[in-house]
């Protein structure tokens, strides 16, 4: 390294302070409640190449600590001069913004006529126009329906605002003042960043700063390489599924081959399903280190090395292979708005692959689906139609090496906040009947998965519309490892326990009648280790605390209690002795059934078929193939798939 080990840490603290200061400025001056509540924004301090060197840790979302601005920076026409601020919201130019509501912004920092760094950040605008309010829906099929897209462009030219660009933005969105208010907050943040970077030049000197930023990347890289070197070399394959590839669709398969060699790793997504017809595609442009593909990696590294530095250097030891036209590298104009649903599954995909490489050090699957529940209705108290966030319905973490999964939230969902029931009930015509942990939902294991969350509510508003974004894991369960069982699937039920009870599955839009009761249960976290080896005392503790029912204690753990809750030692010993030893992976009954039908062979044939077709054709063809396989239960899926194979169409 160019920088001594004391100065490097001092510079690292200064860079972190600058990044926190930028984030606080953004948070303080942002207009929309959405940005304040969800903290859906990020901040980056970038080197002259646009690589992230430092990020804040106390504010904002967790997805972009290693993001690379280089391609987007280069796409701005006309080069840069001091005072310029550029922005983009186009998921298909530079692959920086990954859906149209996300606006990324950056400002070059000049020293003696030369760019020495950039200050950057992104903010999620509540609405950027398009087919639906808030611009996001699984029903959209083309990026053109998802609102205004701005290719990398200057918002400020040498300190002068581009009024034309601003007017264009304001003409195309539903709440123009709010967007401009939030964009101004981002402008204030990058201006703060520029000022802070110039302060660092004065303090450390330009050479030390530039070398130091490079060394911060090397430092992040070294830490990540040390973690990889501590993992056994090998090839680890893992597959996970989204329940649906669109509204009422077929399973969406994500496939990963993780190759660890020495202190490097390759993440090969070959075998992943083709891009979907709906907006679940994840635009990466095939970037070998795209931040959205590596979010799971950030978590794994942080688990294996608590407090590890996260920046672009962290991503260097990793190379991602993303087949063009797949859901992880879609071709324009595939819609991308709801990529967050797929991203949740991408994270559990990465967790699963690493859990094979280091099962003794990593947890089972977290619940992995956070349904964001909103209710739109007229509020009789205020006389206004409003949209109220009821709560994110989050499930527990997976069983860990050293303890049970965290109940009700945890792992990659731990950044989400809920709203007070008292505020929700005061603002929306809704009555919450129950909000808490759902017993018997944590995947059984020596260390059990964290419990699911349950929410039950009713409304008396005749015009109520309930939306539940990101519904998943109703079919494919959060997996268990090392003999642990999967967490319970999610459920969404209308009028539970009544004759009119209705399973709503992964529905994301609902119009309940006045008095209807809606119940939503998140998935539970996966279990870790053979449940029969869970200490009896731990099972009794769960029983006493009501986390487990006597029936489940007996069924899953072989622990028998009498009517007063006292342990029946003899019955427990006998029952435990009769339980089959469990080991290895468990993805749950539905997954086993799916994979019994859709064998590796069938998927291989399916992959060949898809590869032979133009990307734009694949989504519809997938529907036909899956329908045909379902229609012929007597035949092997591979056979059915093979019949679809036709010569590659020629251009006229």
């Amino acid at each position, binding site marked *: 390294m160019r920088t001594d080990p004391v100065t490097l840490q001092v510079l690292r603290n200064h860079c972190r302070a600058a990044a*926190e200061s930028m984030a606080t400025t953004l948070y303080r001056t942002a207009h929309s409640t959405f940005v304040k509540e969800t903290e859906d924004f990020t901040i980056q301090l970038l080197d002259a190449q646009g690589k992230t060197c430092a990020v804040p840790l106390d504010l904002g979302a967790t997805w972009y600590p290693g993001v690379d601005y280089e391609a987007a920076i280069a796409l701005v026409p006309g080069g840069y001069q001091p005072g310029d601020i550029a922005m983009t919201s186009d998921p298909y130019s530079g692959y920086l913004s990954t859906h149209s509501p996300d606006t990324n912004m950056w400002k070059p920092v000049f020293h003696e006529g030369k760019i020495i760094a950039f200050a950057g950040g992104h903010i999620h605008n509540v609405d950027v126009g398009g087919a639906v309010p808030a611009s996001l829906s699984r029903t959209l099929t083309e990026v053109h329906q998802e609102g205004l897209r701005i290719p990398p462009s200057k918002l400020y030219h040498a300190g002068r605002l581009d009024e034309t660009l601003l007017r264009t933005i304001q003409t195309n969105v539903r709440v123009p003042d709010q967007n401009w208010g939030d964009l101004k907050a981002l402008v204030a943040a990058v201006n703060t960043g520029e000022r802070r970077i110039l302060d660092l030049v004065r303090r450390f000197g330009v050479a030390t700063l530039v070398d130091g930023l490079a060394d911060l990347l090397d430092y992040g890289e070294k830490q990540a390489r040390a973690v990889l070197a501590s993992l056994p070399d090998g090839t680890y394959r893992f597959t996970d599924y989204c329940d649906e590839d669109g509204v009422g669709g077929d399973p969406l398969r994500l496939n990963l081959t993780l190759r660890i060699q020495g202190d490097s790793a390759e993440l090969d997504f070959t075998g992943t399903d083709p891009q979907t017809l709906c907006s679940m595609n994840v635009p990466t442009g095939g970037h070998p280190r795209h931040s959205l593909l590596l979010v799971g990696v950030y978590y794994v590294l942080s688990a294996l090395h608590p407090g590890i530095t*996260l920046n672009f250097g962290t991503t260097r030891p990793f190379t991602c292979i993303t087949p063009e036209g797949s859901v992880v590298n879609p071709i324009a104009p595939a819609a991308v708005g709801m990529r967050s649903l797929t991203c949740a599954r991408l994270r559990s995909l990465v*967790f699963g692959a690493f859990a094979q490489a280091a099962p003794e050090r990593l947890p089972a699957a977290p619940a992995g689906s956070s349904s964001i529940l909103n209710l739109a209705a007229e509020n009789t108290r205020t006389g206004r139609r409003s949209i109220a966030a009821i709560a994110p319905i*989050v499930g527990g973490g997976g069983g860990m090496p050293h303890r049970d999964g965290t109940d009700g939230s945890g792992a990659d969902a731990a950044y989400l906040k809920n709203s007070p029931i008292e505020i929700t009930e005061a603002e929306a015509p809704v009555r919450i009947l129950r909000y*808490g942990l759902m017993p018997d939902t944590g995947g059984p294991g020596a260390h059990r998965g964290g419990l699911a969350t349950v929410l039950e509510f009713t409304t008396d508003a005749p015009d109520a519309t309930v939306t539940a974004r990101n519904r998943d894991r109703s079919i494919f369960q959060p997996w268990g490892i090392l003999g642990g069982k999967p967490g319970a699937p999610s459920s969404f039920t209308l009028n539970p326990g009544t004759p009119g009870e209705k399973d709503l599955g992964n529905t994301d839009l609902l119009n309940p009648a006045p008095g209807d009761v809606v119940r939503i249960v998140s998935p539970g976290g996966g279990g870790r280790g053979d449940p029969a080896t869970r200490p009896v005392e731990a099972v009794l503790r769960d029983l006493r605390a009501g986390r487990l029912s006597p029936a489940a204690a007996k069924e899953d753990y072989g622990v028998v209690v009498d009517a007063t809750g006292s342990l029946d030692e003899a019955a427990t010993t006998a029952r435990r002795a009769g339980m089959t030893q469990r080991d290895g992976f468990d993805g749950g009954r539905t997954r086993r059934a799916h994979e019994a039908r859709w064998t590796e062979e069938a998927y291989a044939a399916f992959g060949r078929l898809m590869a032979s077709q133009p990307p734009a054709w694949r989504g519809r063809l997938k529907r036909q193939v899956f329908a045909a396989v379902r229609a012929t239960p007597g035949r092997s899926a591979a056979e059915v798939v093979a019949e679809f194979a036709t010569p590659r169409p020629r251009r006229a």
Partner: protein
Amino acid sequence: MAWRVGVDIGGTFADFAALDLESGRLSTLKVLTTPTAPGEDVAAGLRRLVADEKLVPAAVERFVHGTTVGVNTIIQRRGTRLALFTTAGFTDMLELARLRMPDPYSLFCERPEPLVPREHVFGIAERMDAEGQTLTAPDVESVKAALAAARAAGCEGIVVSFLHAWRNDAHEQAVATLLAELAPELFVFRGSEVWPAIREYERTTTGVLNAYVHPRIDAYLERVEGQLKAAGIAAPLLLTTSAGGTMTAQRGRRDCVGMLLSGTASGVVGAGVVAKAAGVPAVLTLDVGGTSADVALLIDGVPAFGSGQTIGEFPLAIPTVAVISSGQGGGSIAHLDAQGVLQVGPESAGSTPGPACFGRGGARCTVTDAALLCGILGQGELGFGAIAPDRSLSELAIAPIATALGVDAASAAEGVLKVAISGMLVEIDKLLARAGLHASELVLMPFGGAGPMLGALLAETAGIRRVLVPPVPGTLCALGALAADLRRDTMRTVLLPLEDAFWSPIAEGFAAIAGEAEAALAEMGGAGESSLQMAADLRYRGQSFELEVPVASGLLEKPSAEALASLFHAAHEEAFGHSDPGAPVEVVSLRAAARRAAPPVPMPRRPLVDAVIAPEKTIQLRLEGGWREAGLYRRVQLHPGGRLSGPAIVTQSDCTVLIPAGWNASTDELGNLVMEHI
């Protein structure tokens, strides 16, 4: 002949400030705390004040005490066994909290274990709606069943906290009355009685914290009252509060959360007294203790307030002096990470075993050891002579780090200080960005045992150009205790549109909480004028957070929604850089604070005599990459008007002050040492 005594008990030391009103002389003193015999330290300090300072116990007219017994009970989890009775369907309120966890990148993140375990939380069949209308009255049978289970579990107290009790506490009242009949042996707190704010998790947690520490605080106060009686002090025991005021011990027995952060708050109040006297408008206080550095803002001597401070990761809904902590203190441990990069903290040697040089078994190099090796410490006594640092132990502790870095011990030590200082910068920068302030507008006031030795270095790093070191920085908390007003805060959540049509419930709410606050003040007694401050928590409709806006009493005489709204728009503009005068505003909560001013602490001024002061001797100081000569001064030498230049070390019995090269210093009329960056 009359005396006033302030006592603040911290982790290592109990600090005393005794004011002899006749002479105006302020005596200060530190004794070691006695965690195993609570209250014994108070008695020991009093004995020394009598012996050394001629304190006359019978002449003590005001005795104010701050203690960490409450906060330690929570952090060490040694509180009482509680049951929580809450609305059926919501018994996981404490488990779920607000969901979000610290360290969001960790797959292993967790929330703190609730203070009431899930099996001791009981759902009561009852329900109130958001308008305060009963949907289901409390079911007596479910209360009886919960009580039977709580008794069987050996619970000693019960917290009753129901949904929407902020609007109507009738259900809580009914259940508490029933419990008083059925179980007179159990103590009961109601959530809305402790602090009636909207937001069920925060309100309930505040009630739980209060009940959790109640028995221990009750017992402690009884012991201290006994010690005072035995010492011949007849003045009633007053306690410093988290809001920077005082309350009677009588009230403190029930209002336990009110004193949880008393030590940190009274330090800031003490700094405010100094700042006001010195006429400094904007101050950043820096209190460096063993495990953390606490910073707070003072504008015109008045501390910034906030609710939402946390204790052991539990939110406290009551208003408190806003203090931000970062994990670098005098005891923070230095080490090299796997990449060979120097790190300081968050692990700390705390007060036990403490820094290596304390010779109490600490073997790892701390910030204090580094300061000793750089020659900053060790020039005078430490902690009123309670500690004799051993330099050779620091050398041993830093040796592995120095060897790995390939430098000598002093260079490594300087590195440790630099890294520690830069680590403190993160929290300070966030605080300034939140307040929209620039470092160059501020004066840094370091206090606590380790603040003055690091203050100027931190100021340089943060871009602050002036540092003010009060005369006795090591006992500023005790001074704050002497100066704190008797105070009672009350609040009510109303959640109404800010419109003239709703003015009467708003005005009635203000009248009610003002009455409650003044009644509490009257009950606590004491002489002197009282005053009342009122404020409203306002927000734009749809916002999820509120802004506190002071409300002048004249504003309440006639409907004046528009006047209040315009105050809010201006405050919003000030705090966030924008406002929306056309948007509807909501009143979330009303607040009142009644206070009776403490008798002023005389701040004697002495005439300035301009002179350059010669150092007592010349020492070697390691800074800026090399050893250089520095003047050594004793604080008592520095008369008002006396000037000196860095590099220099000023020793005094409670702390050591570092004046780096590039700084000039002079003593003002009040005895403050004021440093200016050249």
